[in-house]
């Protein structure tokens, strides 16, 4: 049913600086589902995330991607965001001179095409800040300037909460977080991820999946999804490690 299909990726190939990094990925996500894409550094999972968001350095050489039934690949990064795609950055950019509040205001203004209702913006903003245990002073600080790793990641989730995308791709949102910060961020994702949208959790480790139970887990090795399963697959991986999995895959077993 196309109706429930939030994301549909078909045989996607991505190159970075002429080198193929993503080598034919296909993936479908239905509304309300959370998928985890797991893989080691260099497996292509972050490249997949960046390519979907329209980063100019990631060239899609073949394949198709539809977001909620619409072709995503002919759109600019701006248009993809407006179409409902959200990328939570692994390394959120620091932009000195631009306050968190002004940044969010610009993003929300872009959505409505007109000035936003400041009163309502403030109310939702405050609620979400409280949920993510973010202090009020955040709003007037320069974007990610001098933020700790945990603060940066909480700010990414705050943005997701404010923008209410159809599909949120969270690229290693768990990295750089201590256990307390991880719980806050995971809770933030659970509470504010759009209910009838989709979520992709891109991660190296299983630990965030203790808090956010995925509907599906995909393992990526060398630019391909080599294994797909339920939440238990992440635990298997945690127990056996990537090396063991890689060995099985190279023998042609798990695919």
């Amino acid at each position: 049913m196309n109706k429930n299909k939030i994301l549909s990726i078909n045989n996607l190939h991505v190159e970075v600086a002429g080198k193929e990094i993503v080598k034919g990925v296909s993936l479908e996500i239905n509304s309300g589902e959370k998928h985890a894409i797991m893989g080691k550094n260099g497996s292509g999972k972050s490249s997949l995330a960046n390519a979907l968001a329209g980063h100019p350095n990631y060239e899609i050489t073949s394949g198709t991607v539809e977001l909620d039934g619409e072709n995503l690949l002919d759109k600019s990064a701006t248009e993809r965001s407006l179409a409902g795609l959200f990328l939570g950055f692994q390394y959120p950019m620091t932009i000195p001179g631009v306050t968190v509040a002004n940044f969010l205001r610009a993003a929300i203004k872009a959505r409505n095409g007109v000035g936003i209702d400041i009163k309502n913006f403030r109310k939702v903003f405050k609620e979400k800040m409280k949920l993510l245990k973010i202090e009020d002073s955040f709003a007037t600080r320069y974007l990610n300037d001098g933020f700790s790793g945990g603060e940066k990641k909480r700010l990414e989730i705050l943005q997701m909460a404010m923008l209410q995308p159809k599909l949120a791709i969270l690229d290693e949102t768990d990295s750089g977080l201590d256990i307390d910060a991880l719980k806050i961020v995971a809770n933030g994702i659970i509470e504010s991820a759009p209910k009838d949208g989709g979520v992709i959790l891109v991660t190296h480790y299983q630990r965030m999946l203790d808090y956010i139970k995925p509907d599906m887990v995909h393992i990526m090795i060398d630019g391909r999804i080599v294994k797909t399963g339920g939440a238990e697959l992440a635990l298997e991986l945690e127990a056996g490690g990537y090396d063991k999995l890689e060995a099985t895959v190279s023998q042609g077993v798990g695919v």
Partner: protein
Amino acid sequence: MNTVTIRKNSTGFRNQNRFEPEWLYNIRKESWNYFNELDLPHRSNHLWRYTNAQDLLPNNPEELIKIVPSLPDQSENDSSFSDKDFSGYGYNRPDFMTFAKLSHDLEKAGVVFKDLLTASRENEDIVEKYLGQLVGYGFGKFEAMNLALWNTGLFLYIPDNVEIEKPIRLQRHPSGPNTFHRLLVVVGNNSKLTLIDDYSGECRKEEAQTNSAVEIFTGDASNVKYFNTQRLSNSCVSYITQRAQISRDAKFVSVFAGIGSKISKFNTGTILNGEGAESRLYGIVFGNENQQFDYHTMHHHKASNSFSDIDFKVVLKDEANSATTGLIRVEEDALNCQAYQVNRNLLLNEGPKAESIPELEILCDQVQCSHGATVGPIDQEMLFYLMSRGVDYKEAMNIITFGYLEPTIAKFPAELGELTRGLLATKMKG
């Protein structure tokens, strides 16, 4: 070369004008002679590497001798000047008449604010003592030209112990093909002033030139803020030389915003002349199209325990270019000074060029000094981050540009920061 032609054919100076005192006439005449004797600065001179001096030279300086400032008439007489935002207001008209209006309270407090020609007659003792002492004919060819030919001028004197809360605003406009502006400010001990020196307007003739000389003397423990905005139309050629001399324990903040003119050469400097003097120099330039900015900043520490800081940012797009030279000089007997300087340049596309040259002349070994200079393109990752949130390319560029300048603008006195943000927003829209 024209340089030689001018010198050989230079006429004598005009006769004394009936409105000007003899000492003033003599300074003008001397300056004129000096101007003619000096060679046109050559590109081998480091301050002239980036601008062709010929572009700043009037076609016919001899003709300009005839233009003398007029004494203001009563046509704009306003004996009860009052304004909710400003304590005083000075401006020049196309007929070279210059007007200065001051709030009644300040008049009563002994503040003098009038056109420079009138002041040279009525406040001779002060004007003669200070005029040309910081930006005189010995400074250089174009400064000598200004002192000889200035045709609109303002004078502001603040006695000791007068605190002026609301800014005094100057609006300076081009008059005809060549306007020579002059400003002399003398601030007494323990006094306080915010002065807005705003250059704006259309140059009626293509490539009309404005040349301005600004001299500011501050008394001990005074607090002076000087804001220079240059937003002349893109057909103008603008040359401004500004010097301030800061006395013991005085605080001086000089802020500049350059967004106008086809060619803008700006030389701003502060001499820390008394122990404990502090100078902060903050500025931004935003250039587009074919604009050319050639900026020189200077902090000259002549006294011990003095402090200086420069934060100057440049943003360029299209085919604009910019050169910044920043000199810090600390004299041998100026001990325990602190001198900091940062110049950063952001290029929004492939077209613009920017250069940044810090110059340090530290003659004393007990000093804390640092300098930094960067030139770089817009960060593509920043751009992508903003676009990934739904902001379009143009808006993302604007946000990054504003953000780049904002930490510097945030150091401006609050009211001047607001003005600057407004100027930038207008320029970005246009």
